[in-house]
């Protein structure tokens, strides 16, 4: 069943690419049907998912290339499930949000479907090399999506994206070869015991490779410069895709393979990561404050919000891991919504300059509904209670505070800054008098706003009923946090018999963090 989730989009891509020239308008239909099918299937998976199990479910294993130990091994657990759901949902919305009059529809929809299949594959892969394969598959389609359907400066932005991502891919491959090669294991299948054969210096080196590789994708602060360019030049649906799903490949990979495979080394570099998280948050937020371009502002806010995810992973307590996954989903929903709304304004007015745009909340000639949704999205993004952003950020901060108090406090300052730059934006663009030049702009039809409405309702729903978002992850997060606790215990207490007792003790102190119900 999981295989179908991966292969439906790929098959759809092939079908679309083979459509004859005269029927190229049907590309959209084919893509829509395939994406809808994948969404329906993922809902079936969701319904059958057993939340009490920590391990992988719906596993499928096929031997593929035995000579190098690559196997087709997929499965889903509490960490990948929410991300798969996010992917299948956003792909449908992205296709819906794409204009009917797009140029070269066959190429466009084929590329979107390839990304859909590749990203789903990344989230489901249980084999390191298979993961890498899917991770690299989305490189060329996304490059083309930015380079062909992008803005004025798209050649520069797409090439920059390509170089950064290709470097990330090579570092990732080197680390994967390193992990498996040095441990002497003959297979690339994800196996938690793989790290035991590695010395701690090796582990740290390999983990640093992974951190840089995924750090480019996330992006972490010194490696982030491709993101604002790529976002500014990409078209609205591609921006939704990029911010909503593709950034999560980095955070997911780091969580799954950094923390999951090398917990001992993770323990060593976690303080450093927490500092990087603070820098990302503050740098992203402060940069967002001075932006004049709405899209760039949202892009920098993404960098800031990725900081929280890094913080939550660095702390690696059960609650912070739950929060990390929730923040991935929450950021996916919120940033997709914000990019979509910015796209409406840009397509109608031809500008995203906040010095020019004014008064779009005007009920008669402006975009009152777009404006209201924007305010909603902005509130969620800055973490107001009752919205999904609050739930995720609260879990992360509450979970990380025990381990990294100072860093957590500094990141909380970041949420304050989020309100600052978003209020500045909303204040400038939506309040005030609508200038004369915008008084006759075309309306945004109700049909176009459907994706925005779906995203907005999700964001409120999860805000009011966080359990629907968090319960999936609890078992898996618990298992992953225990891994970390065990690693800690081994470092402190090499004697095994004592360590066993200690494990429980440490685990219970970690678990006394308020459980999720307290949030409601």
């Amino acid at each position, binding site marked *: 069943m999981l295989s179908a989730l991966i292969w439906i989009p790929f098959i759809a891509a092939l079908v679309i690419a083979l459509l004859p020239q005269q029927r190229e308008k049907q590309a959209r239909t084919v893509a829509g049907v395939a994406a809808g099918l994948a969404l329906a299937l993922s809902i079936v998976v969701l319904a059958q998912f057993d939340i009490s199990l920590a391990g992988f479910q719906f596993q499928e294993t096929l031997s*593929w*290339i*035995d*000579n*190098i130990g*690559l196997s087709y091994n997929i499965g889903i657990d509490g960490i990948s499930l929410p991300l798969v759901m996010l992917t299948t949902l956003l792909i449908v919305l992205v296709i819906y949000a794409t204009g009917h009059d797009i140029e070269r529809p066959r*190429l466009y929809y084929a590329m979107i479907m390839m990304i859909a299949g590749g990203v789903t594959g990344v989230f489901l892969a249980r084999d390191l*090399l298979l993961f*890498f*394969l899917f991770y*690299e*598959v989305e*490189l*060329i389609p996304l*490059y*083309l999506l930015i*380079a*062909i359907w992008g803005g004025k400066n798209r*050649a520069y932005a*797409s090439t920059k994206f*390509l*170089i950064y991502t*290709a*470097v990330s*891919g*090579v570092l990732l*491959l*080197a680390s994967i*070869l*390193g992990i498996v*090669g040095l441990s*002497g294991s003959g297979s690339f299948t994800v196996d938690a015991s793989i790290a035991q*054969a590695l010395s701690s210096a090796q582990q740290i080196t390999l983990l640093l490779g992974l951190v840089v590789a995924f750090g480019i994708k996330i992006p972490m602060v010194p490696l982030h410069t491709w993101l604002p360019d790529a976002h500014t030049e990409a078209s609205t649906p591609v921006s939704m895709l990029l911010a909503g799903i593709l950034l999560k490949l980095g955070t997911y990979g780091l969580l799954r393979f950094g923390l999951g495979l090398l917990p001992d080394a993770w323990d060593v570099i976690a303080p450093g990561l927490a500092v990087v998280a603070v820098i990302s948050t503050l740098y992203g937020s402060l940069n967002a404050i001075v932006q004049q371009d709405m899209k760039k502002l949202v892009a920098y806010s993404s960098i800031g919000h990725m900081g929280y995810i890094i913080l939550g992973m660095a702390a690696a307590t059960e609650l912070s891991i739950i929060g990390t996954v929730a923040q991935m989903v929450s950021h996916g929903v919120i940033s997709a919504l914000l990019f979509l709304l910015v796209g409406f304004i840009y397509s109608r007015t031809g500008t995203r300059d906040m010095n020019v745009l004014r008064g779009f909340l005007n009920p008669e000639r402006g975009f009152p509904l777009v404006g209201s949704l924007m305010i909603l999205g902005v509130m969620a993004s800055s973490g107001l209670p009752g919205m999904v952003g609050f739930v995720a950020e609260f879990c992360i901060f509450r979970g990380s505070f025990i381990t990294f108090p100072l860093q957590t406090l500094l990141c909380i300052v970041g949420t304050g800054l989020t309100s600052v730059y978003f209020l500045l934006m909303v204040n400038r663009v939506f309040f005030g008098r609508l200038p004369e030049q915008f008084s006759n702009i075309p309306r945004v039809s109700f049909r176009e706003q459907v994706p925005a409405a779906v995203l907005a309702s999700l964001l409120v729903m999860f805000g009011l009923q966080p359990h629907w978002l968090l319960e999936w992850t609890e078992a898996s997060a618990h298992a992953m946090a225990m891994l970390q606790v065990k690693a800690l215990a081994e470092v402190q207490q090499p004697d*095994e018999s004592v360590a066993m007792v200690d494990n429980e003790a440490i685990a219970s102190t970690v678990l006394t963090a308020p459980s999720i119900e307290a949030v409601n």
Partner: protein
Amino acid sequence: MDVANLASQLNVGVILPEGIVILTLLTVLIVDIIRGRAANAITPYIAIGGLSASLAALCLQWNIANPVSFLGSFNGDPLSVVFRAIVVLSAAFTILMSIRYVERSGTSLGEFITILLTATLGGMFLCGASELVMIFVALETLSISSYLLTGYMKRDSRSNEAALKYLLIGASSSALFLYGVSLLYGLSGGETQLGAIAANLTAGGQSLGLIMALVFVIAGVAFKISAVPFHQWTPDVYEGSPTPVVAFLSVGSKTAGFALAVRLLVVVFPLLADEWHFVFTVLAMLSMILGNMVALAQTSMKRLLAYSSIGQAGFVMIGLIAGTEVGYASMIFYLLVYLFMNLGGFACVILFSLRTGTDQISEYSGLYHKDPLITLCLSLCLLSLGGIPPLAGFFGKIYLFWAGWQAGLYPLVLVGLVTSVISIYYYIRVVKMMVVREPQEMSDAVKNYPKVSWDAPGLKPLQVGLVISVVATTLVGVASNPVFTLAIDSVENSPALSASLAKAKEKSAIAVLPKDSPSLEVTKVASAKL
């Protein structure tokens, strides 16, 4: 020595595939003489039929009981079968794509095919040769035919220039190689068979003469596989030669070169294994770095492919240096994959130059709007060369890098990884030129692009060759398990390599030991505690 004994010593059956190629060659020549220009309609198909028959004969010779023939000067072991098959395949594809090209240039197709088949013959003998004289004769057969092919467009001054350059540099490299080989002959006390030389050299131990012999032999081999710094001829020759010839040189001739490297270096120089491994590591690094860096700045498609082929040779050398079963097997696998993707790429370049008359990269601008098929095929082949999954090139590279990593060649693999990122950039540049450009940004050549039609004589075979190589490029990687197992079999069943494989195993066992011992201690400590 009675006749029966002689016959069994000669064991002529082993060179049946080569025999078929010789027969084909003669038939083509005779048909061409008898029927004149009208023969153009059938000679290429005779040649392709002959090559297919030769390929079939090669398949039948897989793992034959007694592979040694002609008193030990030719070895038909599975390793040589695989290499010969790659050479034959590359010749067949080259003929498929050359028909239209040669006819358009107004030269005789029959002669072209004859020379090409002679080159193939030389390449095939080189893959199995295990005796010094045989090696040199085969090498010269391949080289001299290649010089002729390079200068085949005799009215084109650039083709002349390429042929002259190739001839001069090639002749001097042959001379160097011959000198190295003659040293071997002397040092081993007058032996010419590789196995006997190796045995006699071991008795003598290391000496200055042996090192000089190694240096000269490496120079000769490196010239054939165009490894940096023996590559200077490559870009000029590739740019000036007829494009189908370049396709053959970059795949067929190189494959023969690698076969020679495996046989000569591995069998004869076990004494100096560390030394030649070191030299090849340097050559491979230089090739990967220089080939891929210089390719970034190229404006002509043929020069780009020339530098890319230098870089690709660097990747293949990783397998040779690894020296393990998996290493040799991944080298063979990569050569096979390289055959399909590179020839597919060249088929597209030939098609484009047939339709527009240019090879400039900038002239490809906007091709997607006029000819989506070529755009798709060329993009797939280039992306595969760049190692983008799930195409065959990616799997080929993974095999090579993984083999290198397991053999402990970390710096080499890291250089390979970094340079393959660089290579992605310049391959993508071409793809971007074709796909991303808007209709209004089309180049003049593409604006005047003729209506796509496959009806002209000689285009159908080109199309067949193109489609086969593109399909193989897409699928061989994903379904690589059987192919790779075959490559491993060929290495395992070749006695010539067994000595060096055993040595490599010993080495890796020593490398693994210290890693194992701490874990042993840990278990001991743990059990003591219990």
